[in-house]
């Protein structure tokens, strides 16, 4: 009897070991137009390096996500770690930044320590896979992040003197809901359309001399971890305005392709609550 019972249970278990056979892998694109007034924008960070031959596909995934989400996804490419070092004679342009190194480091999110390419979506773990994620996970995380609750809105304004290259910026924040943790604000400078060398294992030879770098992190305006936006307790409809004056834009950067990226984050969980961007000229 006991034997039959045990055997029966195991056979039952075998049938419960389900599997889903998929015959239609591709989902139909939904054509619903988003009419929400309050849009929680998503920050996608792509950690990469010019010596990382597996990184260009991830960069393409990031660009694709920016494009297909019509302004709701803001991407930053962060060059840091082993693959972002200089490797003469072919890889001699440095794209690393102090801010990027801090974010990437062991005191930050330890991304290149895990390997490149890897990235973060709102610096939050979706589906229990960890904060740092492979590019295959980004579309899922982005679509989930777009559904996260709207906490606050950000508005950037600036004045930029093209001859002196002095940038003054103001970030205004308005909370829609009450929030129980301290919130910080980080402001960085990002540049599009830089042409330089990149290793790409899909090419033979793998040295691409005219690779197009998009949304590349160039500099931090208020340090690696930003400034206090508002300390808890935060009530609904609270608003704050922060000024960042007299920032000198490096003459190496092409100011026609430069833009500010501001993001507000929860100081204790590090989750990014809102992001915004604005071209400097």
């Amino acid at each position, binding site marked *: 009897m006991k034997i039959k019972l*045990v055997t029966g249970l195991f056979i039952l278990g075998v049938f419960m070991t389900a*599997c889903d056979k998929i015959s239609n892998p591709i*989902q139909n694109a939904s054509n619903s137009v988003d009419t929400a007034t309050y849009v929680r924008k998503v920050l996608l960070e792509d950690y990469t390096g010019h010596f990382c031959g597996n990184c260009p*596909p991830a960069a393409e995934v990031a660009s694709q996500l920016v494009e297909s989400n019509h302004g709701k996804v803001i991407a930053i490419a962060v060059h840091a770690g082993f693959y972002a070092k200089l490797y003469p004679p072919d890889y001699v342009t440095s794209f690393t930044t102090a801010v990027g190194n801090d974010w990437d480091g*062991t005191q930050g999110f330890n991304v290149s*320590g895990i390997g490149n390419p890897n990235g973060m979506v709102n610096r939050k773990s979706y589906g*229990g896979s960890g904060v740092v994620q492979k590019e*295959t996970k980004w579309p*899922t995380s982005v679509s989930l992040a777009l559904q996260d609750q709207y906490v606050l809105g950000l508005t950037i304004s600036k004045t930029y003197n093209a001859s002196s290259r002095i940038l003054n910026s103001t970030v205004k924040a308005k909370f829609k809901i009450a929030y129980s943790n301290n919130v910080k604000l980080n402001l960085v400078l990002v540049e599009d359309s830089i042409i330089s060398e990149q290793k790409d294992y899909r090419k033979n030879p793998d040295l691409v001399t005219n690779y197009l770098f998009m949304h590349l992190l160039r500099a931090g305006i208020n340090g690696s971890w930003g400034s206090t936006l508002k300390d808890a307790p935060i009530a609904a409809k609270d608003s704050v305005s922060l000024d960042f004056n007299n920032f000198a834009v490096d003459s190496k950067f092409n100011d026609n392709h430069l833009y500010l990226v501001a993001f507000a984050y929860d100081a204790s969980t590090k989750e990014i609550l809102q992001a915004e961007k604005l071209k400097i000229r």
Partner: protein
Amino acid sequence: MFLKTFKSSLKATFLVLGLSLSFSVLAQENPDYGSIHGNYQIDAQYYKPDSLIGAPVVPEKMLSNAYGIINYSRGKFSAGVRYEAYNNVMQGFDTRYKGQGITNRFARYQDKLLDITIGNIYDQFGSGLLFRTYYEPGLLYDNSLDGVRVISNPYKGLTFKGLVGKQRSFFTVGPGIVRGFDGEMNLKEMLDSAVSSDFPTIILGGSFVSKYQPDQDPNFNLPENVGSYGGRLNIIKGGFNFFAEYVYKENDPSANNSSVVNGKTYYSYKFGDGIFVSTSYAIQGLSFLLQVKRIDNMSYRSDRDATLQNLMINYLPATTKQHTYLMPAFFPYATQPAGEFGTMGEIQYKIKKGTLLGGKYGTEITLNYSQANGLKQIHVDDSTTTMTLYKTNYGEIGNLYYHDAFIEINKKFTKQWKGTFMYANQFYNRNIVQFGSPNAGYANILSNIVVLDLTYKYKSNSSIRLETQGFFSDNPSNPNAGSWLTGMLEWSPSTHWFVAILDQYNYSNPSDALQFHYYLGTAGYTSGPHRITLSVGKQRAGIFCVGGVCRNVPASNGVAISITSSF
């Protein structure tokens, strides 16, 4: 938050230590209280940056890995905990091992009919092609299943196993749920007295494994449940042993079979399968072994976005020779889960004592050849429909990944002298094995390797050992893959002590300034189950593998200490 977990785990550790201490005192006096055993290992290294050999700056200066295990057992009951601490994790390991805590705990009750384990479980089905969880501290590999396992022997020779849980991922568990069932029957044991004793042992087994992970992808319909199944047969008679296992995995789109074209991700929804056959025949002094393996799309993880060594459900053994000397293991091979065809054949022969070639003690000769190739992937144009993307045919193999032709002669000359001579010819497709891409831009490495290992025992427990090794490779394009010479002198004056000096020299580097002697001095003390070793010097960058899992370790310069003990 982190500190809290840390504090509570620390408390738990002390509690366990305290408890086990009081238990153990009792245990010695009265066996009814059960027995306590444990072991620990502490590795620490002080790093000195050395830009010439490429040893990076380590901001912490000193890094350490440590673990301690305590097991308690009494009759049918056993339980155990493992505490791990990384402050911070040593160079070459995944830096997600950060901090400390209890990473493993289990309780088990074994009865005749049922054997139940809760907590962290290590087990394998068949050869592990579908399911294997194990712990390898040297590589920080631990994919234990945190869950429940039931084993039952309802009838003699018949075993059922069922388990469910989530896998360990650093200091937490992965997102996917793993469920598995395995049945095995030993016909000879089942039939027992009905068959004569020279009836061959025939073991039949079958397994089912399935993983569950929610699909939240906006672009794809990903399978939330990925099932896999397999069957195996083992026939043993006298010195003859035949083992074969075939496994099949349903569509499993994952980071491991994805590709990106123009920013669009494509997964392969193709099935995966694998076959592993091992046949051996051995008589006194002579043996043959033949292994064949074919693996196609068999990366199987409980998180479809996991990479590297993380969250693997199955184990794909490498059918290549596992080397113990440094130089032949310079470029070790690891199974390529995406697709591989591997074979290995080995003959071992011991020339009898008292013959001309056998001498007074006999001579052992091992001949081994192994080879691994990729599979030929045939493009399937279905990227907008079923998305399998490729197919493979049995019997069609792709590019060469690795070969190793190897001879070893082992001989004891006199009571004082013994020696080992080894020669290997190896081919290593560096782009594939090390960088996972055919276009990674590195040259293949073809090498000839020679090892001569001589031991002179000058007193009953005192000996001197000299190892000379050469790695000869014509590969000027890559300095670290050029030729190397290695010498090691080891002196063991008593059973307790040993002192060794190792020198590895990359004499063929085209730049004179980059030719280095990597000196490493090591001293060790062993007393029973306790062992302490201290080493000082330079270590070259390299790949270190245990059981088919490998890790890259950067060059280092400094002082390292290692303590292991068990009780």
